């Protein structure tokens, strides 16, 4: 399981966000360049899903391959539901990752999975050790004009970058992790608003002022 919130920020304020995160973290950022390949099961593959009125639907399964220096298979499952889940500002969902050898794409193609889309995420990450290990990812999302041509990727939303805050959780400790992620998000609130994935809240009006303040403090005070 993981806890996740997302937001967007204008590229011109990303440097200020980095200064803020650097100050909170104390450790340098890690560079991020991940080629993400989204695969979906072909039309004939997948288990039957029994639905009301005898209508049988089918589960189309989706799996992501994250390729940087290593290959990771990632499955993101459904979000936690119920009244409790509605009230919290963080999405709790099932997530499983597995590192795999380089031929993993070939394996999934052979199993009947098809390429749905691919992306190139370029940016940086910071890790924070709180109640859980919180990871903040700031990246521009790029699409490829030709198959797998990561060198010729172009931004999907020019001038806007995506910020994602995630933390691993278990069914026992997710309440604590949710609280930890929520309180962490408050530090970033002047620059960006973070919410559950799919709930777009846009950019925040205070970003320019917050960024200016961070940038002017960035050099430290000379006595």
């Amino acid at each position, binding site marked *: 399981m993981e806890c996740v919130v997302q937001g967007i920020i204008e590229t011109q304020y990303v440097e200020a966000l980095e200064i803020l995160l650097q100050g909170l973290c104390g450790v340098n950022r890690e560079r991020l360049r991940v080629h993400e390949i989204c695969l979906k099961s072909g039309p004939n593959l997948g288990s039957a899903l029994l639905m009301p009125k005898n209508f049988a639907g089918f589960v189309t399964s989706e799996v992501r391959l994250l390729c940087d220096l290593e290959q990771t298979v990632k499955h993101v499952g459904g979000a936690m539901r119920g009244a409790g889940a509605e009230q919290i500002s963080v999405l709790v969902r099932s997530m499983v990752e597995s590192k*795999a050898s380089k031929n993993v794409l070939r394996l999934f193609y052979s199993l009947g999975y098809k390429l749905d889309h691919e992306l190139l995420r370029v940016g940086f990450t910071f890790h924070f050790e709180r109640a859980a290990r919180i990871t903040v990812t700031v990246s521009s999302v790029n699409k490829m004009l030709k198959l797998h041509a990561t060198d010729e990727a172009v931004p999907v939303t020019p001038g806007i970058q995506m910020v994602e805050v995630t933390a691993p959780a278990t069914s026992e400790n997710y309440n604590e992790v949710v609280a930890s992620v929520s309180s962490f998000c408050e530090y970033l609130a002047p620059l960006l608003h973070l919410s559950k994935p799919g709930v777009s809240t846009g950019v925040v009006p205070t970003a320019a002022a917050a960024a200016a303040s961070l940038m002017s403090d960035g050099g430290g005070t000379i006595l």
Partner: protein
Amino acid sequence: MPLKWVFFWQPNAGSTVNSQILNEVSQCVESINGVKEGRWKATLTFYKPMLRDQALSADFPREFIGISLPEQPNKYYFVLRFNKIVLESDSSIQLIMEKLQSYKSRVALNFEGFQYQLGDFQLRVGKVVPSHSENLRGIVMEVLYYYFSSAIEILKQGAFYIFFNIQYWYRLVPVSSCSFLLQVEYLPISSLEKSKQIMVEFSDIWKDAISKRSLAGHFIHIEPNFSDYGLADHYTSQHTAVQYTHVTSQLIASVQAVQTGRN
């Protein structure tokens, strides 16, 4: 990484495998001074696609196998024998496959038994049984050659012996304290080709020992063509996964041959 050969028991025409043969094989290992070390278990799972239209099953892999090996408890291996693919991944991939609901496990075979140490060799003798059943389907034997164990023994003893068939060199590096560092590096026998000779010699000794027991069958090792799977000459657990897949197909073929013979 040690080199491994996986053998399977091929019963003579008209005979079948039974637990008495397994006992005899274990006794044979002990008779040549194999020291029992403990139990081992590997599991091989056949997956089948969950199809909406069974008529289209030809579009999917004929054989999709998942393997867990005792020497790599945090890894899992997938082998597509007809597509010549072997994948190594974290064992969490099994959970991903479960969540994807596109393939489900059809049948699982356990390979389990005792492990023995015999000089530089480790032997694993095991029965092949379907999970949730005790029906003996076959016998396997793994022979693992520790090409580096002699080198480690030497270092443990703090003395340097020159061993026949171990290539080595050393270098004296003076340091400021007027002492010196003796660095010994061994070239392990990592190449399949180089170590094959050692395995062949072991097989001959083993054949000699087992033949005294007049059992109705013999052990066979058939080396798959690893390069078809894109595997290099340097031995890895992926090679072992491929060997298990091929051994299993041989076991199934021999069981089917016996059944055809009866019919």
